[in-house]
């Protein structure tokens, strides 16, 4: 089976772009108190960016392991929905299904769906090439970011403690395409600020999921 060049190009550009986020994650992990080894293992095992950011974010803020895992897992639910969409396309079993599951993330699913006009083969290649490419670059970038942050030392001295929330802001910013979504983001910020003094560290982040549930429950006007 030959590799579709346009699909490979899309996959490669996505994989390299994701590398920038991987560096940020590596640095965020070390800034939150994880060792370089723990940070790298995190990317190898979990391999789902937003969840990893959330987990180290909660730990960095002083939250308990349980609330860190809860926040990360809530963010990982969307991968289940991606898997549901990708399974009938890939039609794999056994160890190939294990690999396909691990590579089921925003980017691989997005590229696969984006290649729909070019047919099933292009979609499949889009999934595998993007998933594998992102896996390689995400993990290399995590290592680079973690080593870089360790070399820098005190996080606040280099602005690393501001870089982490800025990374979250950038991640949410590109999702705010409509006024409704901007409203959800603004409500979430307000909700989190209000509950912060009343809940144990880390829990306000998890509790803010309620805003998503309330906003998504009713049909959008």
């Amino acid at each position, binding site marked *: 089976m030959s590799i579709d060049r346009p699909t490979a190009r899309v996959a490669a550009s996505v994989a390299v772009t994701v590398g920038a986020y991987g560096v*940020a994650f590596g640095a965020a992990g070390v800034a939150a108190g994880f060792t370089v080894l723990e940070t790298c293992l995190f990317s190898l095992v979990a391999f789902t960016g937003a*969840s990893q950011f959330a987990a180290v974010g909660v730990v960095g803020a002083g939250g308990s392991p349980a609330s860190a895992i809860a926040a990360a897992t809530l963010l990982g639910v969307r991968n289940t929905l991606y898997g549901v*969409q990708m399974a009938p396309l890939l039609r794999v079993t056994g160890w190939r299904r294990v690999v396909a599951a691990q590579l089921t993330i925003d980017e691989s699913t997005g590229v696969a769906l984006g290649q729909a006009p070019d047919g099933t083969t292009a979609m499949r290649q889009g999934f595998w090439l993007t998933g594998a490419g992102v896996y390689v670059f995400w993990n290399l970038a995590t290592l680079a970011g973690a080593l870089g942050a360790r070399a820098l030392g005190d996080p606040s*001295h280099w602005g690393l403690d501001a870089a982490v929330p*800025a990374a979250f*802001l950038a991640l949410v910013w590109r999702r705010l395409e409509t006024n409704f979504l901007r409203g959800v983001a603004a409500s*979430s910020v307000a909700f989190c600020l209000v509950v*912060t*003094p009343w809940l*144990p560290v880390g829990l306000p982040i998890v509790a803010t999921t309620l805003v998503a549930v309330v906003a998504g429950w009713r049909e959008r006007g």
Partner: protein
Amino acid sequence: MANWIVVLGTGLLAFALKYLGHLVPERWLTSARLQRVNALVPIALLSALVVAEGLVVKTHVVIDHRVAGLAAALVALILRAPFPVVVIAAALTSALVVHFAYG
């Protein structure tokens, strides 16, 4: 130890969620309500993380050098700067405030 629990717990649950999607019949997860809520969860959580990491120390809302960094990031985002520029702008601004304000 606590960090290992976070790494392995998050990692195993993340894989389990992915694998589950490849196993269950499609019709089980097609509820429009579930899809809508799920699409909003990242926005709510990421917004909360901006607050928790940028404006909070333990259980107190605090305005410090990180806010200057966030403001710089906001300006960069409004100017449509790419991700690395946004993050570096925030880091530089915050580091400058730390340097000049706290010595």
